[in-house]
């Protein structure tokens, strides 16, 4: 058994340990939660951590595997969150079984985010480098502003949606007495039923891992990585650049949408400014600190960096300052040649492998 395991490829072993780590972490945390050993604040972190793990892994697909800098990933999360919330609230009578409704909401969120991904991706992926980065940033801002102008309600006649350019209020939807307001413009969505649970988050993380890891290790993934390493060479061996870029980009968007739907259904109210530029940057920080193209790195970084500022709450004003300093120092340390040489001497085996590779 052990010999068979050792004969596996290195990537397969890494993937195995990634899955194993997530499963073990889930079992431990879930057991602790059921036993009541977690404080209420720690339990409240569990679902957001799952969401941000999915966000980080999906962004890693765009930034690490595809090699295109995206600064608007929170925009897809936002689309997923609001469409998921709309789906969950309007289906509350049709489907009383909560887990099914949650699954449907996540699916709807992923679908709408994927559609947005197509709309954004087709024009954007023609651009390169920093220009692509600024356009994704712009799209993130546009999505945020557009959602701020939405009025959505649901009554016995179905969904009512208007796009609010003047001073309309939720009354202008003209709903009958069974109507419920879902999104009230800049006030966002209120009265959301909290459907998200930790096991649901865990399942979403596992699904994301299955999708992303299988994709990366497949023909598609190799094509995407070939485009990242050398676009011209990839094109010259017959790889359809647009197609593979779009596949990676849309998958990433859909997963972000799913994470958004779960995130949205974890809170009683939701405003679109929660998914602003800073959220995109936050997820990007997870990806870069976890290592570009390194999936388990993203998972660890998302968990640690989500918990760190939360756990430092007692320091209040100083915590974000400390966070900023840590961020700068880590970037300086990981890019320091002298430190790298020192590590190389301490871990000779790793260096050997690298030289051989």
């Amino acid at each position: 058994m052990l010999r068979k395991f050792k004969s596996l490829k290195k990537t397969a072993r890494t993937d195995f340990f990634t899955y194993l780590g997530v499963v073990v972490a889930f079992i431990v945390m879930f057991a602790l939660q059921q036993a009541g050993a977690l404080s209420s604040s720690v339990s409240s972190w569990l679902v957001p951590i799952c969401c941000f793990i999915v966000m980080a892994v999906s962004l890693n697909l765009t930034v690490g595997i595809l090699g295109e800098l995206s600064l608007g990933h929170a925009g897809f999360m936002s689309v997923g969150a609001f469409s998921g919330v709309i789906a969950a609230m309007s289906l509350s009578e049709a489907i009383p079984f909560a887990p099914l409704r949650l699954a449907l909401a996540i699916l709807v969120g992923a679908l709408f985010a994927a559609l947005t991904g197509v709309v954004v991706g087709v024009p954007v992926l023609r651009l390169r480098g920093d220009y692509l980065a600024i356009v994704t940033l712009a799209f993130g801002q546009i999505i945020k502003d557009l959602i701020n102008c939405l009025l959505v309600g649901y009554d016995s006649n179905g969904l009512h949606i208007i796009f609010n350019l003047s001073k309309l209020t939720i009354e202008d939807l003209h709903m009958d007495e069974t109507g419920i307001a879902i999104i009230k413009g800049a006030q966002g969505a209120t009265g959301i039923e909290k459907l998200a649970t930790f096991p649901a988050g865990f399942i979403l993380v596992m699904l994301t891992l299955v999708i992303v890891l299988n994709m990366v290790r497949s023909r598609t993934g190799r094509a995407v990585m070939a485009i990242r390493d050398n676009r011209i060479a990839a094109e010259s061996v017959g790889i359809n650049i647009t197609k593979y870029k779009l596949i990676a980009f849309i998958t990433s968007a859909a997963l972000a949408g799913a994470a958004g739907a779960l995130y949205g259904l974890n809170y009683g109210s939701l405003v679109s400014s929660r998914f602003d530029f800073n959220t995109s940057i936050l997820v990007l920080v997870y990806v870069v600190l976890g290592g570009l193209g390194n999936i388990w790195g993203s998972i660890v970084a998302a968990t640690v960096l989500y918990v760190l500022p939360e756990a430092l709450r007692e320091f209040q004003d100083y915590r974000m300052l400390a966070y900023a300093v840590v961020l700068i120092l880590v970037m300086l340390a990981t890019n320091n040649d002298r430190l790298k040489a020192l590590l190389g001497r301490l871990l000779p085996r790793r260096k050997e492998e690298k030289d051989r590779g």
Partner: protein
Amino acid sequence: MTFFLSCLISGISLGSVYAIIALGYTMVYGIAKMLNFAHGDVIMVGGYVCYCALNYLGLPSLVSVLLAMAACTALGILIEGLAYKPLRQAGSLAVLITAIGVSYFLQNAAQLIWGATPKTFTSVVHIELPQTLTNVGVSSEALVTVLVCVVIMVGLTLFINKSKLGKAMRACSEDKGAAQLMGINVNRTISVTFAIGSALAAVAGVLLCSSFPILQPTTGSMPGIKAFTAAVFGGIGSIPGAFLGGILLGIIESLAKGYISTDLANAIVFAVLIVVLLVRPAGLLGKYVPEKV
């Protein structure tokens, strides 16, 4: 007609502020090839320093502005030396994240020093305009902003094209290795670029706060992003491009606010940027460099 004119004028004034910030962005990008996300927060620091000099030390306006410029120049050199210089050889993403770290640091440090409650900035401009101008919506702040922007733009163009240091900057932005071989001190040139960019950010901060007198730790972030957009709009790395991009962006934003919707003004600005980039992938005045195989 009067409404259109007043929209246009406030747009040009806002655009001038964007242009000044974008000039700093574009210079730093041209030479260091990095997106300096902390630039917007240097604006905010400039605003606060000027505010303190005016209100606590009671200094005259011009001295306060100069003090803010000096403080931001020092800050710019300090940031560059401590955070960016060790990463010269690192990948662009590492530098980007460091810049974001610096941005967080400045925002939170400002919040600790000056508090999160917004301060009301007293304008540094004290000029009485004739009645004919104020009737069409020209404020003294707008006039001064536009004038300062034009002066900076002309001065910077002359500096880059005529002076020895400007020539060194152009050489560094084209090819750092070759510039070094020609005896140019690349590190010092980059530091000087950061210093100039930060001094411009201070001016922009003071002008911005004079027109929109609310000063808080996040004051700089949105104008920073917009100015970055302006720089890309005009073609990043190009100085006339940054100027043109800034002014156009200001006008579009102001017209969108006046005629369509205040909530959607930002979205419209960004939508225009996307359309422009799709038609001209290197911005309005940027040079498109074909790839060599």
